[in-house]
């Protein structure tokens, strides 16, 4: 299918942004679907390979351990990590696994990670830290109360993950039912495949890059599913509308109507993603850079990765899959053949009579959204607007 920008003679090629903004269907997404399948298929394979061979970088919640956190400023100015390590060593007789500075500015803090400690051991460490580095409280006095600690058992992360997987299963079942009722069978199948793609790709990227997996990550992954489907639902809604009454006309094939729908919702998809991602980016910046650790960072990171995967799949995977599924039905295939025949005839006629611009071609390129709906819907005549 050739991309033609509709318009009068001497039509200038608009910028990509303009074409996106006006949603004229200038991007042939369905026609190049083999390309998307191959590249996304490769990506999924790479991700599965990474998960299988490399595994995940599991956080403290999955292994069990103790974290102790204190402000990075003490009575003698900035606290040095080696002093902290020394205090830990003095208190317990063995060093901590890691001692690192996290965050910036006023929120900067020092995080100690070690194997699981008992309550008395934590108390001993806190006491040692107080005498050794004297962390300051808000009033500028050294205080033990500014030292935070958290202990996690080795089974807790697994527990959360197990619940999350149960939630995932329930969600998938419910969503399949919803999609099947709301749309149709093939849309539900295509939507779910896109959904699985998102999960695998997000997990794979985590595995490849080696981001730390915490219970928050697992949960964040679940919320992405909601978002990913959300996007797919919007695109399919448009596809459904564009293909209503399609078989009773020979204006365009199912694939072309679907392509038009994708184009019309493309800007919306991009917009949505940008708008959904902006707060998440804000969250990530603040969580990762300002605080350095914790729930905010974990949730934001997984949302970021997952949302991008979700948008890509709703455009390049869900709709092309839908078209392929539909094309397996004879009635759509016959219809596509009819459309082709009609065009060939029209072209022959046009060639014979040498009529330069063929508006039908513009239609084929999905330029006018007038088609695809029964005539009764077009409402008022449009060419009679007074100026």
């Amino acid at each position, binding site marked *: 299918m050739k991309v033609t920008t509709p318009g009068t003679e001497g039509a200038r090629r608009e910028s990509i942004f303009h074409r996106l903004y006006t949603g004229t269907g200038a991007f042939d997404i369905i026609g190049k679907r083999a390309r998307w399948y191959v590249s996304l298929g490769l990506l999924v394979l790479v991700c599965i390979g990474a998960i299988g061979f490399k595994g995940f970088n599991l956080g403290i919640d999955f292994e069990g351990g103790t974290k102790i956190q204190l402000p990075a400023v003490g009575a003698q100015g900035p606290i040095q990590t080696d002093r902290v390590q020394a205090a830990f060593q003095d208190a317990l007789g063995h060093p901590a696994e890691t001692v690192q500075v996290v965050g910036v500015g006023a929120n900067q803090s020092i995080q100690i990670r070690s194997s699981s400690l008992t309550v008395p051991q934590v108390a001993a460490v806190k006491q040692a830290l107080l005498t050794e580095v004297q962390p300051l409280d808000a009033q500028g006095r050294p205080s033990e109360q500014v030292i935070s600690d958290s202990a996690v058992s080795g089974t807790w992360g697994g527990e959360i993950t197990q619940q999350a997987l149960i939630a995932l299963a329930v969600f998938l079942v419910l969503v399949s039912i919803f999609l099947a009722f709301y749309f149709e069978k093939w849309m539900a199948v295509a939507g779910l495949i896109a959904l699985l793609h998102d999960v695998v790709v997000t997990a794979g990227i985590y595995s490849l890059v080696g981001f730390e997996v915490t219970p928050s990550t697992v949960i964040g992954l679940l919320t992405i599913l909601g978002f990913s*489907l959300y996007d797919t639902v919007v695109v399919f809604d448009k596809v459904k509308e564009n293909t209503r009454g399609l078989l009773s006309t020979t204006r365009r094939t199912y694939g072309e109507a679907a392509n038009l729908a994708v184009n019309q919702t493309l800007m919306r998809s991009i917009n949505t993603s940008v708008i959904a991602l902006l707060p998440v980016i804000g969250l990530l910046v603040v969580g990762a850079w*300002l605080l350095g650790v914790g729930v905010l960072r974990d949730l934001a990171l997984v949302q970021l990765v997952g949302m991008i995967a979700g948008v890509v799949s709703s455009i390049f995977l869900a709709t092309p899959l839908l078209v392929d599924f539909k094309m397996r039905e004879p009635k759509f295939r016959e219809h596509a053949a009819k459309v082709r025949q009609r065009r060939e005839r029209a072209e022959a006629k046009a060639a014979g009579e040498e009529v330069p611009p063929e508006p039908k071609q513009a239609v084929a390129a999905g330029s006018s959204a007038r088609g695809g709906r029964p005539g009764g819907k077009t409402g008022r005549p449009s060419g009679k607007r007074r100026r």
Partner: protein
Amino acid sequence: MAPPAGQFRPGRYLAFFALIVIGLYALVFFTGDGKPNPKLGIDLQGGTRVTLTARTPDGRPPTTESLNQARQIIETRVNGMGISGSEVTRDGNNLVITVPGEGGEQAKQLGQTAELNFRKVINAVPAAQPPAGTTPQAARQQGGDDKKAIDEAKALRQSTDPKVQMQALQTLNCAAEDPLRGNDDPKLPLVTCDREGQQKYLLEPVFLPGKEIANSQAQPPNPQGGHPGWAVALDFKSEGAKIWADFTSANVGQQAAFVLDTEVVSAPSVNTAMLGGNALITGQFNQQTATDLANILKYGSLPLAFDQSEAETVSATLGVASLEAGLIAGGLGLLLVAVYCLFYYRLLGILTILSLALSGGVVYGVLVLLGRWVGFTLDLAGVAGFIVAIGITADSFIVFFERLKDEIREGRTFRSAVPRAWPRARRTILSADAVSFLAAAVLYILAVGQVKGFAFTLGMSTVLDLVVVFLVTHPLVALASKNKFLSKPSVSGLGAVQRLSDRYRAARKAAATTAKEA
């Protein structure tokens, strides 16, 4: 779908929304304490949180009943710490203890099963029968009052003065809720009731702590083994075995009370000196009661053991830092969205920002009320949920605006596009929000831990988003489309699409004329 016959009146919708907001904030300011502050989780205000996971011996999920029982016992102990605002909540198979502020370190030890101790019985008297059908109900009290009640009870019932002891034994009411429960001092004598409220006991200080019990199990009747009925077998650890041997040798014929969280669960008589580090308790047991007692001796009063899954103490400094970070992140997110919307949608962008701001106002009011009425606490994960929801909220507006553009592309004016675009956008918004809400609801019901807060705020935002889109955004766009200045293409940001539709029309005309000429 043509516009409905009934004229759409934006003003009515906006007025209705204004009423909702006024009502909401009236509730915020004139009910409860009247302070517009949401209840913050301990990760935002500092404090201690301990998550206890129930473990059953056979690995099956624990029953709701046993979990609730455990919750009450632990709550009694938490209240004994005397820090107001502490609470124990159930979360799936977990119990979560939260103690705000400082001094919650003790909470980390409360998750151990009920405290079982052995005390020698000095005196036992039958308790007055409580009227039939009344069961003492645990009344929720503020920690501070509890502390006072406990101190009073201690003074009376843990006195070393025999006169006071006798008085306590006389006056003790076994039908009432016991403030001392789980808070008695093991080094002092104790006046207390048994579990059934049938007997009152005066007991010596603890001679053997329950943690010295290695194992205990119910034994079926065994006439050859010297017990014709059900019995409970006890094994002691080495230290306990020694103490038990010494005690039983010195006290044959006396009663040893097993005291669990200040209640006497059983007070068997010592028949012989038991030197082997184990004991057999016989009495009027059937299988059920023997098993129950064995479980109590093994686990304390719960048929469950609890593992401490997670315990954290957050300093107030870190809490404030987290809260600030969350607010900065939210502000930053909103700002970025606002700039993008303005750049892309111009006038409609302003409407988006206005809608978002109103949405935020409603969300905040609801948050305060939920904290006040159902004890919903906002934690860091919840803040993250709101921030993520900004995108979902703004998305509803975008669905609507893009629909408008579709209609205009087909050659409509801004004004005539609104009534046609809305019903279709509405359908999409509803279905997309349904999916998003479904995800949040499933997560909220099934997930455990901090994520509940995240799911809750996400789901709540989705619902409130619908309210705002229906009552604010659509009416405002409808008003703007009827206003001459506001619907100018340069203002509304719809110029490009309009020009495009004009060109199509020209092209179609041209095509039509060439066709005619032909």
